[in-house]
């Protein structure tokens, strides 16, 4: 199995520890499973809980985090200028419009792909650790250089997976790479885009199936929710709580679990109402 290069320097880990900062990379292997959406929403949700949070766009090829947060027009400098020393850290950080505790570290132009390396990421994280409680790193799809750069700056990982065969396979590969690196204190799973009706008909892998196969501890479940797309259109993540939506609630719960609260993970297949629903409810009663 291909190994990630072992972390050459651990200065960033020391910086994280001494400033009590947690640096979490969101990765998946497969593209389009919801990493960037989750990063934006967890950034908002953690900020709302009072944590100083920085979301780092590490997808230098296809940056999108700025758009999802509605901050695309406020970017002046980026990680590129910070690393090359042509601006100070604070000049590149973009403050969120509504959540004062949230800042974005924007990605530079795609040419960063040619020169940015894991050491640069570790340096960036070392600088950020001083001022933040949480650093969330939005990794690109794949397991190549961009991914390696993104994971180099983190000591925790959230593996994002869809209950779908190719996503689970790729997540397993990523889980293997992360644990072989040996620098992660915690690797947890978020299952995204779950469709309860399909799971009920046994036409979609259930949460239990996914957990069984991957054997990574579960941090949260987010169901398929069209509000996610609407909120992306607006650049206003659901976690802001402007509209009541299942995914928005799920993001909030995940953030609370991250800060150590014991929030139970609800059984996604239980919503009672009429007789048929109650029957369905009975049939979906958890027995194991």
């Amino acid at each position, binding site marked *: *199995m291909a190994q990630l290069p072992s972390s050459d320097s651990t200065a960033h880990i020391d910086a994280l520890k001494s400033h009590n900062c947690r640096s979490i990379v969101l990765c998946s292997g497969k593209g389009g499973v919801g990493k960037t959406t989750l990063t934006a929403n967890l950034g908002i949700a953690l900020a709302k809980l009072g944590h100083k949070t920085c979301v780092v766009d590490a997808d230098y090829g296809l940056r999108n985090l700025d758009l999802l947060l509605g901050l695309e027009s406020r970017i002046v400098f980026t990680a590129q200028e910070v690393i090359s020393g042509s601006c100070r850290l604070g000049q590149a950080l973009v403050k969120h419009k509504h959540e004062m505790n949230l800042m974005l570290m924007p990605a530079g132009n795609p040419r960063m792909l040619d020169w940015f390396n894991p050491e640069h990421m570790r340096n960036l994280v070392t600088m950020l650790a001083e001022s933040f409680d949480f650093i969330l790193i939005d990794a690109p799809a794949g397991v190549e250089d961009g991914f390696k750069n993104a994971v180099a700056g983190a000591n925790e990982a959230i593996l994002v997976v869809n209950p779908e065969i190719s996503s689970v396979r790729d997540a*397993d590969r990523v889980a293997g790479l992360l644990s072989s690196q040996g620098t992660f204190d915690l690797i947890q799973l978020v299952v995204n885009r779950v469709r309860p009706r399909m799971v009920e*008909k046994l036409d979609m892998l*259930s949460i239990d*199936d996914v957990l069984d*196969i991957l054997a990574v501890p579960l941090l949260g479940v987010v169901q398929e929710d069209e509000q996610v797309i609407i909120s992306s259109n607006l650049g206003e993540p659901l976690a802001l709580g402007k509209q009541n939506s299942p995914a928005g609630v799920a993001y909030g719960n995940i953030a609370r679990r991250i800060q150590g609260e014991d929030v139970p993970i609800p059984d996604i297949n239980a919503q009672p109402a009429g007789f048929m629903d109650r029957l369905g409810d009975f049939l979906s009663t*958890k*027995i194991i």
Partner: protein
Amino acid sequence: MSIMELLKRLTGNRNTSANSACSRLRMVLAHDRSDLSPAILDQMRLEIMEVVSKYLELDHTGSELSLETEDRSTALVASLPIRRVRKVAR
């Protein structure tokens, strides 16, 4: 597991697409995790059979070597149907 899922499983409704996704995933992950190619696996099967054939007469057509996985650990499982036990000269 829910009652519905249990009923479906009990009533022999095992051909759901989720079930086949599960079993296909288990297969492919066992290989991914071990990083063994099918060619190497077959080579291994032949060599194992060669050793075992010194002691037992095997049914060559029915032998199988496969990887099975549970949690994050993987096991090599050999199924070598026996025709008859050879008398081994000591």
